[in-house]
């Protein structure tokens, strides 16, 4: 039996979303097959693009493929980044083997570095005849950026987080890090309410749901003594704990009163129009959200609404951008509309 104490002590391992604890790899068989085939067939100068949201396991996948020797990249190779290549293109010459790996081509990097990085990469591939795997978020779908890279292949298979996938990952993590404490017939439903697993992996959110989002939420609740006491009670994570935790906004620290006001309006709207997330099929545009704000009595200019309310809520991970980041009017729009509610927001309005 896993107790609350056991779970608290192992939560950072079980719910890790970084490479720190060397969690085992799970699933993504189709992705691996496609990646292996496409990488093997890359010709000189060609690039395989992996463009998926942040925190969904792209780097983990590539590392796993290298460890399994399924792609021709020397074991132990660390990845270059767009920023590093932009600052020092010579680094690419030191990269071992024939296939470079460029990671972090995403919104966490300055646009100038993304652009220069990709241009330098293309120049180097032209000169050297080498190939590359480029890993990033939807920034790579922006034509201004992707047009820097000439001969591209795209990794299309990338299993999204659905119930079965999440369940399998969680099961494996518990088996890996807590096997001494598991009963012979352990299954993940012994520790996590099946309803919670469902809510953490809603179908409509598959395209943007991330392991980082799910696991950081699990860690936050487990680490909070109010919901999981440090005692020998049987550990069981229920949906109601998460709802309460998120509704109490304990982890939230909004900056302005008007942000709280809008958040309340948005919550009410979601509660009435999309109970438990049912019916969400697409993201909301800025216009729609602005109209919602005005109907709720918030008096604010359109431009200020986007800058002071929407984007900060997106940074605070209450809203998730599903658009393609793009450079426009001398500004890199990192989190463009449409927006969908994040798990944090949605679970707080159930």
């Amino acid at each position, binding site marked *: 039996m896993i107790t609350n104490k056991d779970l608290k002590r192992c939560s*950072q*391992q079980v719910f890790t979303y970084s490479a*720190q*604890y060397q969690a*085992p790899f799970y699933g993504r068989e189709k992705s691996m097959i496609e990646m292996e085939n496409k990488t093997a067939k890359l010709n000189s100068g060609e690039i395989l693009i992996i463009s998926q949201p942040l925190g969904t396991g792209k780097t983990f996948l590539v590392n796993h493929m290298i460890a399994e020797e399924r792609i021709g990249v*020397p074991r*132990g190779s*660390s990845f270059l980044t767009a920023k590093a290549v932009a600052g020092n293109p010579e680094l690419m010459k030191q990269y071992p083997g024939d296939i470079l790996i460029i990671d972090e081509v995403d919104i966490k990097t300055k646009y100038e570095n993304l652009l220069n990085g990709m241009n330098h990469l293309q120049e180097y591939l032209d000169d050297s005849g080498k190939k590359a795997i480029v890993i990033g978020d939807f920034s790579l779908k922006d034509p201004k950026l992707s047009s820097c890279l000439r001969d591209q292949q795209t990794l299309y298979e990338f299993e999204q987080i659905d119930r079965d996938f999440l369940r399998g990952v969680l099961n494996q993590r518990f088996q890996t890090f807590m096997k001494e404490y598991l009963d012979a017939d352990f299954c993940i439903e012994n520790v996590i309410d099946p309803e919670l697993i469902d809510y953490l992996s809603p179908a409509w959110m598959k395209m943007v749901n991330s392991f980082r989002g799910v696991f950081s939420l699990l860690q936050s609740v487990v680490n909070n003594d109010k919901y999981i006491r440090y005692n020998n009670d049987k550990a069981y994570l229920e949906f109601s704990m998460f709802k309460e935790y998120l509704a109490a906004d304990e982890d939230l620290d909004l900056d302005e009163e008007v942000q709280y006001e809008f958040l309340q309006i948005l919550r009410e709207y979601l509660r009435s129009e999309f109970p438990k997330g049912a019916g969400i099929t697409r993201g909301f545009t800025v216009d729609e959200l602005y109209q919602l704000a005005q109907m709720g009595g918030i008096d604010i200019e359109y431009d200020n609404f986007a800058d*002071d309310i929407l984007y900060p809520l997106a940074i605070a991970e*209450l809203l998730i951008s599903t658009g393609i980041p793009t450079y426009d009017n001398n500004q890199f729009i990192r989190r463009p509309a449409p927006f969908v509610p994040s798990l944090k927001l949605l679970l707080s309005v159930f």
Partner: protein
Amino acid sequence: MNEDVILRSLILNADSSADIETQHKLITGMVDLIVKGIEVDMEEFELLVEDIVGNRAVSVRKAKKLLEQTGAFLITNGLWKYNNNFMFHKQMVKWDQFTELFIVGDKANAADPLSVDKERDSIIKGINWTIHVSELAENSKDIGGLPAFFSCNDSDDQIIGYNVAGTSTSDAMSLLCQSTEYLRECGKEAEEIVKCLTFLLNKVIACQCVASGWDRGGFFPLEDQPESDHPTVDATCLAVMALCSLYEQRHMIEDEFCDNFKTGYKDVEQAVLEGLGFLFRMQLSDGSFGIYKYEDGREGASNENCTRIVQSTMGVCKGSGVFDSTERFDLYPACSKIISDTYNYLCSHTAESQEYQIWAPYFGAKAQDYNIEDVIVSTARVCRSFIPVWWQCEDERENIVKYCYDFLHYWQDNEKRVINKVGSYRFNSPTANGFSAGEYFWPSHPDILAAYTVLQAYNIFGLALTKEEWALIERTVQRTLKIQHPHGHWDNPLAEKTPFCAVTLAAIELLQEYRKAKGVS
């Protein structure tokens, strides 16, 4: 109250405590960027805001306002710069003075201003941390040693998980036994030190395979390699060397701390002898060592890390006194033969790299096929294992010195390329059905390992160092001091606030060797 604290708090002039905290983070972030030479344009500032706000929904506009409100920074030609006319209470605050107030880490790690021996203080802090986490593990009663991972909170460090890490436990014991001259000064009661050593010793021995058969005597890595169903060469070497270290220091421990620390050392002697027996069986057909060799003859890939660590272990065992106490004089030539075999293998499997003879991971043929930081880690570890060869084969001393010089110059040439890089030693684990598909790895700071190797060569082999070479060592030592956490540990190089025994041991070894080189130890 410290004047700096007052000055800092007055510069942070926002209205709410949340805004003050944001101002502090913004300023610290700006100082960090500017010190690194990064131009902070509006986009860089936007990234900084995203980085620091966490769950707080702060707009870039608000952050800009908060920062400007302090008066310390302003925007000139689209770039954020420090306000060189920043006045505070009618006094100009220069950039150097301002950075002193807000640079994270240096302040926290500032040693007692009356103490001039930062290295000594740092070593003692590290020792105290090791004793503290050992006590945590002992008191938790449900973990049989030290874990692989710890978490570091503001107030304290905690254990993560319930599985013992064999190498973590061995590293902690080695750290304490190699630091006995500092144990006296660490401020702990003798009883506490003895209790800690006893705990670690018992837990190291508990990781040994006692079942009769092929694996007998080997030490399990446990949580370090969860897929491993067999003991491994590296875990065994670390454990055997830790046991020998304690064995060598037993009289000192008894004299200084406790007369009857142990009633006898038969268990330690037996563990060392059995461990050696396991290692002899693990030798590969070509004379080198990999992570494991199955009874049916399947061999793990020969690698430089296992080969060099076995070489070191043989030397440590020969010098420990265990063979004399147990009258196992036959083990002297047996260990000497292994040393000859491994040394010959190492010498004939260097990597091609311009004019230097160095070692690449897994005895790769060309250094250019590997990350430089990994080559530095590999070569540093190999060169530090030459001590037993130095004593056993005097004819090889000239070659050993040449290897060490080659390494030093290779590191010197590539110093800038490895700063802040993380070295990795990767390996597969021996499972019940063969070697694992998954890889594990030891992360490390290449420069810390490199500096230790060079200093050891200076102290033992008489390597002469030029002014520039000393400067390289000094820079590394200063960086090592800088990255020590206030709690006394060093972190996993891949993640902040994750204490790591192996890295803590490596850092303390470096600082001890440095003090020896300086003649203050």
